[in-house]
């Protein structure tokens, strides 16, 4: 790019709080999210550390039972709604979606900024609950515990989640409309990078599922604040109905929490294998299949809740079906490595670790979907291990992969590969040490949400707590070297990984409106096998513009 770097760069577009807090540039909004979400991740992580310390001994000696209940409730609520649901979509998605489809911004830049303010507004309610004395319902808010018996600050937490839900819906609408209306000329659906497909699928789930959560939370708040008894068994209200509504949202929401990770990995694996993604169409369509079929399986959280066994059989069947698209993806990712030229940069390591951990979490999902096994392991640490393998081992690892992959684009700086590789490896080892023992615990019958436990389980708990320390180091390291790189890192070239995506065709960091000249796309995604591509621009128009 011939234009002088300072003016061409979105980071140089004015500084100071005003320029950031009133920006409508999707790239800056992504940063607003990145900073807030990082804070929430470490807050949630701090609760997790306290949980693990408490569980190192069978007796409840560090905190009281009430405090423990608040710890895991807040941990779950914060990690799910204030970190993991928005994590990749609101940061990397926000930053990359317009770049990847060759647009100047999202369709509604102001709505995008508004969604961040709504997020912050909602998080005040949640933080109020934290400071005022916590919530003691678990992240699932089951009635009638949450409506009639819980004595924590349930209403403000529920309102917080409710409000954050709106920010999620806003993001979802923005993404859907952007993908439909702003694709660059020549960028047909089947030329889209998988990341865009997964963003689209995620947005669909956000828009269709979140309102149902909002409805159920509003009913809880009405019951607690206005005394309108809707789930009150005394009036004939049905506690199971709440569970239906909650899981109608929350099962699809777990796909909000994995699809974006799948998208990131689908970018990283081909890049460092120098191979096109294996079975591109199958991977793209299976993302959509996950988004749609994910809505049909929520009853698998309720096998022993008292719903009819017949419904249990239906939901179990559908749960096995929804595993198939994930299976397809796992096989396709593995085959992508075949005959590649594989190198092991930090983000590639994270992506490979994602592959392993997601697979092991997903396979545990099959155990849970099998009715007779779930009867035994439901609400035990087996479930806890399952979802941490997918959400932490899968999604958070993918988030790290993506953050490292696009860091040069986000910041224009390179970080230390050595430290990156160390952090990835420490995370992987610490993760397995933390959560593998929990599978064993669950199979042994250790119930979840237990403050104290029978002494014979201690061995496994100690392993898990030890692992959490290693894991904490794994997550703290990037905090330091990435921050350091912001100020001291080497300047990044425009396309440090020789990747093919449109986002790499503009400068690092990109100019305020993304592209000097609007691109035209002439190739499928992942054209790594087309010879001599590395230094060639995607579109003749880009060249012509200079």
């Amino acid at each position, binding site marked *: 790019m011939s234009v002088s770097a300072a003016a061409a760069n979105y980071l140089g577009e004015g500084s100071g709080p005003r320029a950031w807090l009133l920006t409508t540039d999707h790239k800056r909004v992504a940063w607003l999210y990145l900073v807030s979400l990082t804070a929430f991740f470490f807050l949630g992580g701090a609760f997790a550390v306290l949980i693990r310390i408490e569980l190192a001994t069978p007796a409840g000696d560090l905190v009281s039972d009430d405090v423990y209940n608040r710890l895991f409730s807040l941990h779950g609520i914060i990690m799910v709604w204030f970190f993991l649901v928005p994590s990749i979509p609101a940061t990397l998605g926000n930053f990359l979606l317009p770049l990847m489809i060759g647009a100047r911004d999202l369709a509604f830049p102001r709505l995008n900024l508004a969604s961040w303010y709504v997020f912050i507004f909602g998080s005040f309610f949640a933080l109020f609950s934290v400071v005022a004395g916590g919530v003691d319902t678990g992240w699932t808010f*089951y009635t009638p515990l949450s409506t009639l018996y819980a004595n924590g600050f349930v209403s403000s937490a529920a309102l917080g989640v409710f409000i954050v839900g709106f920010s999620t819906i806003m993001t979802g609408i923005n993404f859907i409309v952007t993908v439909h209306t702003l694709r660059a000329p020549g960028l047909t659906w089947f030329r889209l990078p998988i990341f865009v497909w997964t963003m689209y699928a995620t947005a669909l789930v956000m828009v269709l599922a979140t309102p149902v959560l909002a409805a159920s939370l509003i009913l809880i708040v009405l019951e607690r604040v206005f005394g309108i008894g809707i789930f009150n068994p005394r009036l004939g209200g049905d506690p199971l109905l709440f569970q239906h509504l909650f899981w109608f949202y929350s099962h699809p929401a777990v796909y909000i929490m994995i699809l974006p990770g799948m998208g990131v990995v689908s970018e990283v694996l081909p890049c460092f294998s120098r191979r096109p993604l294996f079975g591109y169409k199958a991977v793209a369509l299976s993302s959509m299949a996950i988004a749609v079929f994910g809505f049909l399986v929520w009853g698998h959280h309720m096998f022993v809740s008292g719903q009819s066994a017949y419904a249990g059989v239906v939901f179990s069947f559908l749960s096995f079906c929804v595993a198939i698209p994930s299976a397809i993806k796992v096989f396709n990712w593995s085959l992508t490595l075949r005959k590649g030229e594989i190198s092991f940069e930090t983000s590639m390591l994270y992506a490979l670790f994602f592959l392993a951990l997601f697979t092991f979490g997903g396979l545990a999902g099959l155990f849970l979907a099998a009715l007779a096994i779930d009867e035994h392991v439901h609400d035990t640490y087996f479930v806890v291990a399952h979802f941490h393998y997918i959400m932490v081992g899968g999604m958070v690892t993918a988030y790290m992969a993506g953050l490292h992959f696009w860091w040069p684009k986000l910041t224009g700086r390179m970080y230390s590969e050595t430290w990156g590789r160390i952090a990835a490896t420490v995370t992987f080892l610490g993760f397995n040490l933390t959560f593998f023992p929990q599978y064993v615990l669950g199979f042994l019958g250790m119930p979840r949400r237990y403050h104290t436990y029978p002494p014979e389980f201690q061995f496994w708990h100690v392993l898990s707590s030890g692992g959490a320390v290693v894991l904490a180091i794994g997550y703290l390291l990037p905090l330091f070297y990435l921050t350091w790189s912001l100020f001291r890192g080497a300047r990044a070239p425009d396309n440090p990984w020789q990747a093919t995506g449109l986002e790499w065709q503009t400068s690092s960091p990109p100019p305020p409106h993304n592209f000097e000249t609007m691109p035209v796309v002439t190739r499928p995604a992942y054209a790594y096998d087309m010879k001599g591509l590395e230094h060639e621009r995607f579109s003749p128009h880009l060249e012509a513009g200079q």
Partner: protein
Amino acid sequence: MSFGIPFFPQQASSAAGSVDALFYTLLAFAIALGLSLTFLVVGYAVKYRVGSPAGRTGERARSLPLELTWTIASLVIAFIFFGWGAVLFVRRDHPPPNAIEIAGLGKQWMWEFRHPGGQREINELHVPVGRAVVVSLASQDVIHSFFVPAFRVKQDAVPGRTTHVWFIATEPGRYHLFCAQYCGTQHSEMGGWVTAMAPEQYASWLESQGEGETLAASGEKLFQALGCSGCHGNSSKVRAPSLAGIFGRPVALANQQTVIADERYLRDSILVPNKEIAAGYEPVMPSFDGLVDEGELQMLLAYLKSLSPREPAKNEAVR
């Protein structure tokens, strides 16, 4: 169990073996698949690392036959495990006919059990080995869950309805009883022990607990005290259906439908009498919602059930 570290849960019920068989088969599958994928990925990663001499010609980024193969194979395997799990699971709905019925009541934060003979225990449950036991579960306040890992059984106790779980203990011993559904402050302390004993010991244990009045007898007393007998008794002036033998019988309703008088029906008849009106009767029965608590409801149900011919014989057998 090396060094006192547990690796497997105890197997102490008739279901444990078959559930474990499924578990270990699925585990074997998961390990086999996991290992092959690991070998595949690590193998590729080594073989095709940058600068390795491995040949890279003839590659293609898709292969329809391959993709179809793994899709179909996954489907088939998934369906096998689904079917297996489902077959084991639906047994839950069909307890053996001669089962002992114990009433279990969850409340914040204890389990209260009542044996057919009226013996009450808290956070302890004594059951005979080799006999089917049905625990009918109710909850006074929030949702709890009855969980005995050694038996591989779990069932939520939901306020406003009765649920069931059954098992046949196979090994005498003491096993953990947990509350698996988060229910508030002392959730982790809510539980205790299930003691499985040889039938003779169980009988003498029942003996030693004192010959309280049976659950059905308490229910009968309530039936008098609450005034049910005023309407449902033989000499009553109100026209109300006779309740003899009602349990398990089909009942014609005023809205032309027919329902089986199961526990849910009896329960609703007492708490929400207007919901389903028996054909040919006026809807004059008052609701007893709020007048009877869950424990009393269980007694009434036990009494009503004892009016059905099969039931008394069953209660006899326990003594």
